[in-house]
């Protein structure tokens, strides 16, 4: 069957159509059109929604709500989102950033999906017509998720508390060897009071670095202080092997880059 696009004004109308076999949601096109171009004939029908609400960015009272159709370029240039802009700028080149969406990034298989790594560290909430789901839960079940993502929400971090690092072999735009995002709250004595770390390319989708997080609590961000966290960083990971790097290489360099992110 040839590929065909159906356009709907609202998510509600589109959700029903999306249940049909061989149907996928079209966001920025950087995943589904790419697959069709490469000869994936499993998708014959695309669905999109033109509701302008999906492209809205709302920042109020320390809370951020990004519509699912918001692009990486829109986040990178938004004056109130400077703290998370590095994660949006890490995605693709300028043209890709004008197209790739927040919603799509949640479904991007490793080595893609750098922004979703940031969302996981930020403990974001994924919004669909069915309700709200923590991003960690959503990522785990994304392959079977059929409801259109309408938005993500999270508390806006301060520039000091949020750190993001993407490692690639080509600068300034390259595919990830790995990416790391960390949300750190420091106690008055300079020790880590709370921490969430997320990693890209260390599994087929973004995952938490739970062992490293545990190893950091109550520690100072010094080479000695972070040593236990670095030693435990690869625990529970299953890095991907692809033309960019082998699983072995990714596992070897993870502690090096996590160290740089934490000591920076």
């Amino acid at each position, binding site marked *: *069957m*040839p*590929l065909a696009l159906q356009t709907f004004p609202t998510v509600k109308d589109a959700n029903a159509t999306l249940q049909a076999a061989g149907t996928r949601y079209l966001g920025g096109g950087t995943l589904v059109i790419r697959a*069709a*171009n*490469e*000869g994936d*004939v499993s998708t014959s029908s695309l669905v999109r929604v033109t509701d302008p609400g999906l492209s809205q960015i709302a920042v109020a009272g320390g809370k951020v709500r990004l519509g699912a159709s918001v692009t990486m370029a829109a986040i990178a240039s938004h004056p109130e989102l400077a703290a998370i802009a590095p994660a949006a700028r890490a995605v693709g080149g300028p043209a890709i950033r004008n197209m790739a969406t927040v919603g799509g990034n949640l479904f991007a298989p490793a080595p893609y999906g750098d922004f979703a790594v940031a969302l996981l560290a930020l403990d974001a909430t994924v919004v669909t017509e069915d309700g709200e789901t923590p991003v960690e839960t959503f990522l785990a079940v994304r392959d079977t998720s059929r409801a259109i993502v309408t938005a993500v929400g999270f508390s806006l971090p301060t520039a000091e508390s949020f750190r993001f690092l993407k490692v690639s072999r080509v600068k300034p735009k390259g595919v990830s060897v790995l990416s790391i995002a960390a949300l750190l709250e420091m106690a008055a004595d300079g020790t880590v009071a709370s921490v969430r770390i997320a990693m890209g390319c260390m599994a087929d989708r973004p995952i938490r670095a739970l062992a490293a997080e545990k190893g950091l609590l109550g520690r100072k961000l010094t080479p000695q202080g972070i040593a236990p966290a670095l030693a435990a960083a690869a625990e529970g990971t299953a890095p991907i092997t692809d033309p960019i790097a082998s699983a072995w290489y990714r596992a070897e360099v993870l502690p090096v880059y996590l160290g740089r992110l934490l000591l920076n």
Partner: protein
Amino acid sequence: MEMRKDYFADVRQDGLHEIGQARPRLDSPGHVTGKTAYFADRNFPGMLHLKMVRSPHHHARIRSIDTSEADKHPGVVRVLTAKDVPHNVYTILILIQVGPEDETVLADGKVRWKGEAVVAVLAETERAAQEGAAKVKVDYEFLPAVFDMEEALKPGAPLVNEYHGQNYYLYDSGECRKVRFGDVDAGFAQADHILEQSYQSSPIEHAPTETTGCVVAPEGNDRFTCYTNTQAMFFTLDNTSIILQMPGSKLHFVGGTVGGGFGGKVDVIVEPIAILGAKLTGRPVSFVYTREEEMQISSPRAAEMVVIKDGVMKDGRIVARKVTGYTDAGAYSRHSPYGTQKGAAHYPGPYTIPNVWIDTYCVYTNRTPSSAMRGFGVTIGDFALEVQMDKLARLIGMDPLEFRFINAYRDGDMKAHRQPTEGAALIECMQEASRVANWPVAGKYMAMSSYKKGA
């Protein structure tokens, strides 16, 4: 840009009109306006799209091919298998009498590498061709595969290519190309130090921005115009003529505009099958590699292994060099027997060494067939040689650049493959490199000349 006029001043001419002048490129105006016509910029009404069903296995016997579902698929116009190709077993260097014919246009009874073309599907749209290709059923019986050259050369290794009968190319000189110069054993016997090292490289893909492809239009007078991005127009035309058993006068090739080639577009892969499709359907045909095909299917530079054994004197003279080179041709010859031969002639590098022994092997494995790429047969060898030169210099405690001056070839020196050196400029290049890189060498080296007089 600085023109250094003091080198070879005796033969320089300063009255040249073009050399040393900035001249506009003739093709640039077309490029910057988007008007340059690449093959894929030709579009014909009723054009069919060709997609290839490829082997998912490295080595397998084909028990059966069932195209019945694909034949019936909406939009599919014609499905081609080996029996449709007039002269299915070919090799491109047959034009210069380098045989045997060892490769199939479409697999017949066996596949020898993952990605090998098995069935061609022609359809009204790319999508219909992809869907049709997905419906072709091929029943394979797995065969043991070999991916490593040393393994492939061991007795009892799986035989990759029956047309050769062994896993290496049999030259008229035997199992390898050989160069013998002086007495290498005597050279090693007199050497102060001996250093043997081995060097390896992986296949390298050219990754041109424009993928390999062609567009073919039947002209109505039993002639076919083929718009192609081949880097080897007449070579491709002649091979197509053999494969299709069609006189060359029936084939009109239009090309010369290539969106990046780097040697990756000198094999004869897309044109014969696309022209056959146009002939059998009477319709224009487009066959363009996807990016994945370009990266995985098109020939890369061969993987190589180079073992270099050198005998060197404390004063810096290399007195013996023995090189054993292995070129991984993959499953088929393509240009590799030639590249391997080029390697034999290229060693021992741009150095004059009195005792030389070279063996270079063209080895078959179940990997993607390799072929031409920028200086193939010599580039990896140069990497190995120059790393070896640095190691030798370190071994005898000599500056690596001065060490190269001592051994550099100069006009009149006899090369190992019996070609006298002429027009050498290595000494002068190194003198200039020493100057601009601020890597000083002793005055006696700066006074040297490729003419040998100054030595």
